């Protein structure tokens, strides 16, 4: 049973309080009507299924009811981080030891700048 740090409750809680909701960062296409059947099918059904570092969407269902993301190793089940909606992971397949601080800071600045324009979604 996982022990999951809820970034909103700011403490560890038992897995029984949470529901996994699939892969994180799957943004709904901004203009669904402009999608081909293939693009729409990809959005609905096709997922990364990595052996190793994976970003997942979870909800603290019995708790604060907030959705948030988890970076987890799908083999060891180690949770590397949890982060709020709209934030970017520090640990990725590319950076299994974590992105360097400078990069995290740069991404944050970029995200804030982009965030003004991209108000419509936080999944991406």
């Amino acid at each position, binding site marked *: 049973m996982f022990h999951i740090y809820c970034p909103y409750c700011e403490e560890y809680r038992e897995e029984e309080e949470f529901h996994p909701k699939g892969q994180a960062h799957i943004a709904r296409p901004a203009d669904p009507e402009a999608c081909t059947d293939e693009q729409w099918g990809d959005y609905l059904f096709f997922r990364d299924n990595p052996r190793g570092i994976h970003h997942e969407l979870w*909800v603290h269902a019995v708790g604060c009811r907030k959705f948030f993301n988890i970076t987890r190793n799908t083999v060891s089940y180690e949770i590397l981080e949890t982060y709020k909606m709209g934030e970017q992971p520090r640990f990725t397949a590319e950076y299994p030891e974590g992105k360097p601080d400078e990069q995290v800071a740069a991404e944050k600045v970029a995200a804030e700048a982009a965030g003004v324009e991209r108000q419509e979604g936080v999944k991406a």
Partner: protein
Amino acid sequence: MSQVNRLREGGRIDRARRLNFTFNGKRYQGHAGDTLASALLANGVDIVNRSFKYSRPRGIVAAGAEEPNALIQLGSTEATQVPNVRATQQALFEGLTAQSTNGWPNVQRDVMSLVGKLGGRFMPPGFYYKTFMAPASMWMTYEKFIRKGAGLGRSPMERDPDIYDHLNQHCDLLVIGAGPVGLAAALTAARTGARVILADEQEEMGGSLLDSRETLNGQPASQWVAQVLEELAGLDNVTLLPRTTAHGYHDHHFVTLHERRTEHLGETAPLAAGVRPARSRLHRVRAGQVLLATGAHERPLVYAGNDVPGNLVAGAVSTYIRRYGVVPGNKLVLSVSNDHAYRAALDWDEAGREVVAIVDARPAPDGELVEQARDRGLRVITGSAVLEAKGSTRVSGARIATIDTATFTVTGQAETLACDTIASSGGYSPVIHLASHTGARPTWNDEVLGFVPSLVKGVHAAGSARGIHDLAEGLADGMAKACEALAELGKSAEVIALPQVEARREGVACALYQVPHEKPTLRAPKQFVDMQNDVTAAAIELATREGFESIEHVKRYTAMGFGTDQGKLGNINGMAIAARCLGKSIPEVGTTVFRPNYTPVTFGAIAGRHCRDLFDPERYTAMHQWHVEHGAEFEEVGQWKRPWYFPQSVNGKQETMHEAVARECLAVREKVGILDASTLGKIDIQGPDAREFLNRIYTNKWAKLAVGRARYGLMCKDDGMLMDDGTTSCLGENHFLMTTTTGGAAGVMEWLELWHQTEWPELNVTFTSVTDHWATMTITGPEARNLLAEITDIDLARDRFKFMDWREGKVAEVPARVFRISFTGELAYEINVQANYALHVWKTLFQHGEKYGLTPYGTETMHVLRAEKGFIIAGQDTDGSVTPEDLGMQWAVGYDKPYSWVGKRALSRSDTRRIDRKQLVGLKPKDPTVVLEEGAQIVFDPDHAIPMPMVGHVTSSYYSPTLQSGFALAVVKGGQSRMGQTVYLPMADGKTHAAEIVGPIFYDPKGERQHV
């Protein structure tokens, strides 16, 4: 019978307390402090069981969790039977009743042993894969016979009288094992004030110190144990759990511990102040750090006849003598590969029985214990091993010879030593099971001659559990690892004063697993590796010859390690034999992976209190009591109990469901009925963007819904398939009340939050479940207005309170929101009141309702009435593959809404545009007396051969007392353009029904009645 093997003194048993017990129908005596195994050995009982495959007589081999043979059936009554109890782990209690699990007519004379003796050679591993194939039709018959021989113990056939429970525990450090290492670790951690749990599987804490020859601080080791335990028991931050096995290590340091709370007291938990306590308790421990001080299991050597009663592992001999005051025989031959096992001979000698010889595989052993043995005048034969145990029901001799371990050959002439006991030791395997549960693969260590655990972060192993068998080093290791664990939690621990241990020089052990025999393994007498599953060295050799080269293949082909002991004694020996046969090293053959449980745990303990009445919540509405008192039958809907129908007694006879439903339906159509609709999900939605949110989440339009009005809505997933439906009312410009299906409520709530939090956080809207706050009662039927008018101040005039309006007012003095929504097609009012007042309102309606014929109805009648109107039930008429268009509900699809709402895009995919999709229609049976079966499959051509092309199925079907005929809703391929066509329903009884495709609305198609 006297306790022939009980020593006059010594051991930790309470000699003043004699306990009577029965084994295989015979009465014996033992003492408090005995295990069933020690008591049986004390009484000279050699054969405790028959083996699984060959029915060979078997005795007690070990003294703990690793015991493979002594599995017994416990219990004197049917309800209290426990199968497969390990006698070595069962404390003796007064009146204990046990039986061998195998052996017919009894274990002494077992008929099946003949089969084993004669047929044994016809049962190599995998023999059943190679035979019983012809003729094919006979297999099920063969199998019946094979199954007769299956199993060890038997299941009870009556309900368990006991209860079980769970305790959720949290700690900084969980220490598993209360031997010297665990005690040192626990004490170190406890003194820092950290929250510590110390769990140990034995009846008493102390582990190896309870039967140790060592002194600590110059005193018997047990004295130190007592001191430490006393200190720990006095600390608030420490939880001591004796008789508690850590059986499973799950993710993120979640460990399950099984505490046997009363199993040492009787076969059922004794009443305490009239209350039956939990027989055992499962602790669900979330630990910050875990320290494994689980010790090691001694490996027996694999030699011919090593399963004959009287063969034991060396350490068990010491344990029985020193802890229980029992010598399990008279004349001992000890066969060893290491110094440590010499203790068995020293203990045996001190107990005053004869040590015939110590046979040491090493050419020149020279450790201190070896010298002690020689000093005592014990015969030490070097470079040799026991090749074969003689005897059939008890060891009668040991054939020994010099051997060459490197070439695996017998090098000298064998000599037979007369003896009745052979103890052996091939070394010590660290108990790595729990570490292995975490997914970390253990690694082979040539110095330890065993696998040592790999450890994930936060897990620590100390002492024997990682191959440090020396007592002084182990104590220091326990302390050091506890400090490390605490440091990881950011706590610092101080060094504690460890007890003084006499240093002892120990010689190097040699690697010996299977002892060579003069004959090749396949021809030698059976050399057992896994005694519980009757796996021999020959079986392993044969498996490797047949191409099973991975250790996993070998295990599966031979069943090695698949017993209830999970190969605690045998697995390493088996791997060594496989390695020898394949010419590889042990680590090359593979590693050994253990799965939970370390030792078996009862289903009851795992289920805990979540059984019987508490298996799953039952959800009740505020009117539940009334329903019960009025004889309702209930339907399960999600976790809710909903009244299904209210059978009445007519002329002393209880109505059938059919009769009750017919009466209830007619009451609604002709007078007025009342339904408890409280279980529908209700979600309060507020915020300036609430309306926009509804527009995106529902298929239909919400822009113009005025305050005071309600609207039916459809909710799809983004694949275009219907997921839920319900009405949503506009309470204020920025305030809506959504209803959902009963079963879908929680899912819809999470669905709304998902979209809001992840896709549309910019929308200012909140969702709050008010399902439980409001109780809902629907009164419906032509008299509904007249009835309601009697007890409300709301103006019910048809032009001022129209269909799909809602109003506020008082009903029976209670503030209420009343919604003019109809799921029956009749005039209907859904009265919502704060749930605490609901029963009052409900009862008041009945006080006034009698003259109108007010009739309570349940879900069955609701289903009939709504189906007559063609109203769907999501989840019954739809199944996750149905779009709003398939339902003919294009009127509820906002094709031109500006935002591409959830589900819209999918409706234009090629498959959703097919014209032959299954579509909702009505079916009118040609024979009006026929009620089609729900789930009946529909065909166009009833004469088609099997397999028949099916074109749809019946989703809802009832007898309509109003129409006086059966009718149904169904989905049919291209059904909406097949009105008037006939379809067929071929049934299991051979009949084929014919039905006409009609529109789904059977009653009041213009919908006039709900507007009256």
